[in-house]
């Protein structure tokens, strides 16, 4: 049986772990709030950009020569998987990796090739371990994704698409619902869906002057849709990661608390047993003398 000393040592070790998980929970909580605030802050930009794109597309009329809207036979699919750089966040990373691999399997079964672009060290290392070749991987951006990070990814996929190296791009990420739940989302990035450029255009009196001209302005606007979509997904993914970590760490702290209670009970029993033992010994000794 474990002695009082042993149990005491375990209690203090569990206590230290609890302090760490508690601290991680608090850090994740404050980062979660920051990520949520940034999702809010993006909304006006995203909405106005979308409206502008719709207006310009309506003014242009002919969309057939926009390379990012062009649909063609799909021979190669690019999967963009958004994961985190670190673990200890429940099923956050595993869900994205699992779904991405499922998509890859389905596509390959349909005779199409799959290429990978991966955000986050976790996803990159798991997918490499599964012998997938990564066309691009991005690390160190998920804690606080910047708009320029989204631009880098957007330019890369647009480039692959325009060079004809891929014919379709899908993105898999965690959508933030609450700290307890994240919803796995799959969106088609390229070709740019029609809804992104069609919609209710705001009519103005007369017509716009375009500089340089409407076709070039539109060709400049359409990639912004990609950037905004990727940026929003990065922010959602970051919020989800912090939410998942916060929940995982809260559970860990709770478990540590239960464990400490159990151990304290055990320690008290051990102490009581020791005292009883000593009394028995004293009594037995006294009996022997009389």
């Amino acid at each position, binding site marked *: 049986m474990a002695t009082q000393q042993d149990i005491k040592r375990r209690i203090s070790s569990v206590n230290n772990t609890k302090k760490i998980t508690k601290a991680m929970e608090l850090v994740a909580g404050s980062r979660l709030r920051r990520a949520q605030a*940034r999702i809010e*802050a*993006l909304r*006006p*930009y*995203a909405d*106005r*950009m979308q409206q*502008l794109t719709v*207006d*310009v597309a309506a003014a242009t009329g002919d969309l057939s020569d926009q390379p990012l809207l062009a649909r063609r036979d799909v021979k190669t699919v690019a999967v963009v998987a958004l994961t985190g750089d670190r673990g200890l966040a429940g099923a956050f990373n595993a869900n994205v990796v699992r779904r991405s691999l499922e998509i890859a399997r389905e596509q390959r079964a349909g005779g199409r090739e799959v290429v990978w672009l991966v955000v986050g060290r976790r996803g990159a290392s798991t997918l490499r371990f599964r012998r997938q070749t990564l066309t691009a991987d991005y690390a160190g951006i998920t804690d606080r994704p910047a*708009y*320029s990070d989204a*631009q*880098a990814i957007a*330019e*890369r996929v647009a*480039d692959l698409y325009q060079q004809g190296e891929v014919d379709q791009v899908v993105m898999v990420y965690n959508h933030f619902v609450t700290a307890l739940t994240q919803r796995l989302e799959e969106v088609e990035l390229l070709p740019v869906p029609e809804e992104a450029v069609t919609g209710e255009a*705001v009519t*103005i*009196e*007369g*017509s*716009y*002057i*375009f*500089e*340089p001209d*409407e076709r*070039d*302005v539109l060709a*400049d*606007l359409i990639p*912004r849709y990609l*950037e*905004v979509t990727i*940026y929003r997904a990065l922010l959602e993914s970051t919020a989800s990661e912090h939410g998942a970590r916060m929940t995982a760490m809260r559970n860990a702290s709770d478990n540590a608390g239960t464990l400490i209670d159990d151990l304290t009970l055990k320690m008290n029993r051990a102490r009581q047993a020791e005292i009883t033992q000593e009394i028995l010994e004293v009594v037995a000794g006294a009996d022997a003398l009389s």
Partner: protein
Amino acid sequence: MADHDAQRVDVITPEGPVFEGEAEIVVVPGSAGQLGIMANHAPLVSSLKPGQLHVTDMQGQRHEFATDGGFVEVRKNETLVLVGEAVPRDQIDAGEARARLERAQAQLEQARGGEGDRYRAEREAAFAEALVQASS
């Protein structure tokens, strides 16, 4: 300067709006040259290159920003500026801006040698250049 009409001006970035309100004139770095927009300007849509943007509000106060590329849309007395990044001039650290420009130029050198993304390096260099100019 009450002799000018007011127009509504919004300068919005992915991080949120940096200017919202009535203004007398807004000057933006259009892709074909500087554009000064006052009230009752004809409807216009233009792409913007990285550069300097300034807004003069109705009190005659000038708000200056170094901006990344983007767009401007002018409707009747409503001017909307959408840019990837906008840093107020008084918040630019001159030393940091120069360091960023040097880094960007080094990247651009590499990109010209065929390594990395050239388009991205060019844009970063152009924005860093705008930051340096605004800070000097």
